[in-house]
Structures are given as structure tokens and as C-alpha cells.
């Protein structure tokens, strides 16, 4: 077996397992946890386009989640436009907003960009919490928006609502696979090379013909577009959105935490990070929140600090090494057997 085919087999097995899981795992609770895990892996992967490859620290990605969630929901509630179309509209709107924030701030050093994106979320949240009606759009202030559920047992693809968890599971799984594939393609493209180079040594990259600021803005717009799609998904999953659920700093920080713990700038990092953190968050929320409030946030912080102290590049690096060793062993024993 060659290393190439070993990797391909591994990947195929992984995808097949993910596809087959709902057939084995019948409990909606576990499915829900998996769906949230994929959703966070998805959002972190899109975050990673800016935070990982472009080498800056965006702390305001929840604003794009919020734009996605609110756009599709408002369009559905007020005009009956299918959330699938709303999803795309939200994505474009998020991309446009990202351009507006990114253009002036991405020229600056990381600290400023981090603060600007952070302040932007806070500003947007404060505004949304204070308006019931923004022009023709009903936002309902801090009370948020309820999507009336379809009659029990009914599902509709057009309405992006399903009676069981399985369709949600497959939608987010395909979204995740798509965005991982896109990132993989991007990392091997001119834009990917330019982003990494510009993130590491901006002057050197510029001297090599890279317009660093422009590349970063491009990545930011792309990332915002993709992140907003997750917002629509989240809205359709929970059928209830309010400013503190989708426009919070906590969500922005959690994405950054997952990315750093998994491995910033690596393809597998966001998935590894989500696999690590989501169960911790979900289970401590379920079992500990009554007795030990805020425990899951302490765990999150401690895990982050410990990982950063011992594996500053995240967990994907030692895991890749482990995988390579495994690959070497299996591949060499197979060829050894052939002799």
C-alpha cells in the first residue's frame, strides 16, 4: 500500500463513517451534539481562512453568523422567501459587510484588526438590541425572532424545516465537507500561497508581487460569505434567534479557541478542535451547569491554556506526526510482506 492510497482509504473510511452514523446512532440528543459539532467545525474552518491562513486575528465572526441568521429569517417571516435563497442573500450581505470592515482595518497590524472586529460585533449587537424595526425589516430588538414551526411531523425542503434530525445532519455534513474541500483547494492555489506568505512576512510577500492587503480582504469576504451560511443553518435548526444567541463575543471567541486548540492554519485543525471542545462544552452544560455554573467555560479556558503551553501550534501537529508514523508502519509492513 502506498502512502497515497493509505491516505485516500483513511479519508474514504472517515467520510463513510460520517455518512453512516445516523443509521447507527438513533438518539436525537447524540445526533444534535454531532450536528452542533459539525456546525462549529464548519464555522471554525471558515474562520480559519482569515485567522489561520491570513495570519490575523478576527474576533468578530459572530457578526456574520448573525447576518446570515437574521437575513434568511427576516426574508422568510416577512415575505415567505425560502431560507435557501435567504442563505445566499445573507452570505452576500455578510461578504459586503466584511469588505467594509476589512478594507480599512486589514492594512493595520493584528492587534487593531482584532479590536476592530470585536468592537464591530458589540456595536451591531447593541444596535440590534435597540431596534424593533430597521427600515422595512422587523428585528424585534432583544426579544429576537421566532420561526413558527411546521405542524408536528411535517418537513419541507423549501422551508428548510424537517421533522427529524437526520436531514439537518446531512446538510451540515455536506456543508462541512464542501468547505474543507474548498479550503484544501485554496491552500494549494495562488491566493493560498499569497495569504500564507503575507501573513508571515508582509514586506517580503509584497516584494514578491503579492498585494497583501488585497489578498486579506479577499479572504475575509470569502470567509464572511461562508460563515453567514452557517448562520442560516443555525436559525433553521433552533427556529429562534436573538441578539445574545448569534451576535455575541462568546461565539467569536469560541471559534478562535477551537481553531487554536486544533491548529491554526491547518486543514484538520478546526475539526480536531471541534471534536475536542464541543463534547466538553455540551456535556458540562448538560451535567454541570446546575451545580457548577460556568464550569464549561473554565474547562474551555484551561484546555486552551494547557494546549498552548505544550503544543503552541495546536493539536493537529502531534496528531499528524502520529498519523504519519502509523502510515509508515502500515505501508512498510505491506511492502515488506510482498518481498
Amino acid at each position, binding site marked *: 500500500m502506498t502512502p497515497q492510497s493509505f491516505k485516500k482509504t483513511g479519508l474514504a473510511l472517515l467520510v463513510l463513517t460520517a455518512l453512516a452514523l445516523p443509521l447507527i446512532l438513533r438518539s436525537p440528543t447524540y445526533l444534535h451534539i454531532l450536528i452542533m459539532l459539525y456546525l462549529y467545525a464548519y464555522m471554525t474552518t471558515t474562520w480559519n481562512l482569515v485567522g489561520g491562513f491570513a495570519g490575523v486575528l478576527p474576533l468578530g465572526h459572530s457578526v456574520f453568523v448573525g447576518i446570515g441568521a437574521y437575513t434568511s429569517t427576516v426574508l422568510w417571516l416577512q415575505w415567505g422567501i425560502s431560507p435557501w435563497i435567504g442563505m445566499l442573500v445573507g452570505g452576500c450581505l455578510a461578504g459586503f459587510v466584511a469588505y467594509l470592515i476589512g478594507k480599512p482595518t486589514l492594512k493595520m497590524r493584528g492587534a487593531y484588526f482584532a479590536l476592530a472586529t470585536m468592537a464591530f460585533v458589540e456595536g451591531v449587537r447593541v444596535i440590534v438590541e435597540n431596534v424593533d424595526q430597521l427600515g422595512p425589516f422587523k428585528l424585534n430588538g432583544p426579544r429576537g425572532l421566532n420561526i413558527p414551526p411546521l405542524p408536528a411531523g411535517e418537513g419541507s425542503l423549501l422551508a428548510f424545516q424537517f421533522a427529524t434530525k437526520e436531514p439537518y445532519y446531512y446538510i451540515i455534513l455536506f456543508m462541512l465537507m464542501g468547505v474543507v474541500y474548498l479550503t484544501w483547494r485554496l491552500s494549494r492555489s495562488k491566493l493560498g500561497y499569497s495569504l500564507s506568505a503575507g501573513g508571515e512576512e508582509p514586506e517580503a510577500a509584497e516584494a514578491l508581487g503579492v498585494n497583501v492587503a488585497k489578498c486579506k480582504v479577499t479572504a475575509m469576504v470569502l470567509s464572511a460569505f461562508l460563515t453567514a451560511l452557517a448562520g442560516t443553518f443555525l436559525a433553521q435548526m433552533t427556529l429562534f434567534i436573538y441578539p445574545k444567541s448569534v451576535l455575541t463575543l462568546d461565539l467569536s471567541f469560541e471559534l478562535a479557541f477551537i481553531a487554536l486548540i486544533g491548529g491554526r492554519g491547518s486543514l484538520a485543525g478546526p475539526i480536531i478542535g471541534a471534536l475536542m471542545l464541543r463534547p466538553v462544552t455540551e456535556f458540562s452544560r448538560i451535567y454541570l451547569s446546575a451545580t457548577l455554573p460556568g464550569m464549561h467555560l473554565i474547562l*474551555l479556558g484551561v484546555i486552551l491554556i494547557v494546549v498552548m503551553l505544550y503544543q503552541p501550534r495546536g493539536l493537529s501537529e502531534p496528531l499528524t506526526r502520529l498519523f504519519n508514523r502509523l502510515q509508515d508502519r502500515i505501508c512498510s509492513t505491506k511492502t515488506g510482506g510482498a518481498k
Partner: protein
Amino acid sequence: MDLIFLLQDVINGILMGSIYGLVALGLTLVFGVLKIINFAHGSFLMVGMYVAYWIVAYTGLHPYLALFLVAPIMYFFGYQMQQWLIRPIFVAERDVREPITVIIVTTGVWYVLDNLALLLFGPDYRALSPNPLKGEMIEIGEILISTPKLFGFIITVLTAAGLYWFLLKTRMGRAIRATSLDRDAASLMGISQWKIFNVAFGIGTAIAGIAAVVLVPVYNVYPTVGVPFDVKSFVIVVLGGLGSIPGALLGGVIIGLIESIGPNFMTSTWTEAIVYGLFLLVLFFKPSGLFGQKYDW
């Protein structure tokens, strides 16, 4: 609107704003030297407030006398925090220009500290008792000035002056300034970069401690009390210029004025939105802030 009320609001804004400036002072000092934003700064303020609260509650000391205990305790706390937590990550990330990992780790510290406080002390709001300053006012004509806030203003001015004196006149202060200008060159001159980082972090935290003492008589203590101050401090330091001491104070006063005058014209939540709007305007049009040097960062 009555002019006297406006004047009252202006004075109130300046006094409260100077306290915001004091909180931001510690943040800007740490940024100036380490070039990182300490997201846990607000949590340090929270820790300081609990320390001050417990000291006063158990010893019955006058709140301002607690300063002489709180500031050293917080200095020690910050110094050790940098030594054992921030430094190892700094070392690991030395080749990287933007210390993103360090910034995120300070966020982790924020999460841990705030929620640890929640776990240990519960979500209750605690007000200082005995509180000899409660509701104390000075009357000048028709204008009422809150005594503890006036003291806060005075302590802020003294702290800023003291910090200036320290940075300009003492050996350690000069070493700190040299490191903030060019840490490699300073290292070559025999200044231990890590020692300076520890001290700067310690002083920044001690300033948060001073601010905590100032705030305790007028503010409730609760686990997330640092968060609004944290976010406000970020706005203030960017407004004034990251790393600038006068910028932090002036930025604080500007925010304080907006918050005290604004509610006369709109609901107070909208004044909050104005603060963020102003912040973004500064970022877009004068990113170096009012006092920051353009190439310093």
C-alpha cells in the same frame, strides 16, 4: 435643557471618564511594552475588586487605605501571571510577528478568572460595607459632586503622574521604555527582556488594582464586573492611541463624557452604540489614535 444640569453631567463625565482612563492605563502600558492586548485586563480589575472588597469587609479598613495592600497584591499577581503563563507562550511563538496565540491565551485567562469567581463567590452583587463613602457628595453652588468619584479622579491623576515619573526618572522605568521601543536592541544593551515584561505586566495589573480600589466604593462587585470595563478599555486605548499614557486618560474622559451627556438626548443604550461608532470612525480614519505614533506598532 438647564445649563446647570449640563455642567453637572460634564463634571460627572470627566470624573467617571478618568476612572475608565485609569483602567485603560494599565492596558496601554502592557501593550506598549509587550505589544499584546491583554484581554484579561478587565478580569484583573474584577480580581482586584474582590480583593479590595474582602479586605475592607474583614478588616474594616477605610477603602482607600486598602490601596496599600491591593496594589502590591495585584502587582505580584500580574508578575507571576506573566512569568508562568504568558512568557512560555511568548517564547514558543518567538519567530512569529503577530503574537496571536498570546492574545487568545489572555482571553482564556479571562474566561477562567470570571467563571472561577462565579463558582467561588456566586453571581451575587456585593456592595461594600462598611462604606464610609456611600452617597457622599460635595456641594458647589447647585452642583453636586460625588466624593468617591472626585477621589477617583485625584487618584487617577496621581497614578498617571507617578507612572510618568517612574518611566522617566528611574532606572527600571528607562529600561522599560527602551524595551518598548526596541526589545532586541534593549536586550543587546544588557536589559533582560523577560524581567521587563514581568515588571510591566505587574505594574499594569497593579494599576488595575488601584482602579479596583477606586471603583469599589461606587460600584457593585460581581464576577463579570470586568467585562464592561474591559471592552471600554479597548475602545479607549484605540481612541487614544495604543501604548499612549495621555491617550488613555483623554480617551477615558471622552467616553465618560459621551456616557454622561448622551442620555440627555437619547436612550442610554444608544449612547453605547455611539461609543462603538466613534471607535470604528477612529479606526478607519486615524488608526493610530489621538496620541499614538504611526509606526510604533
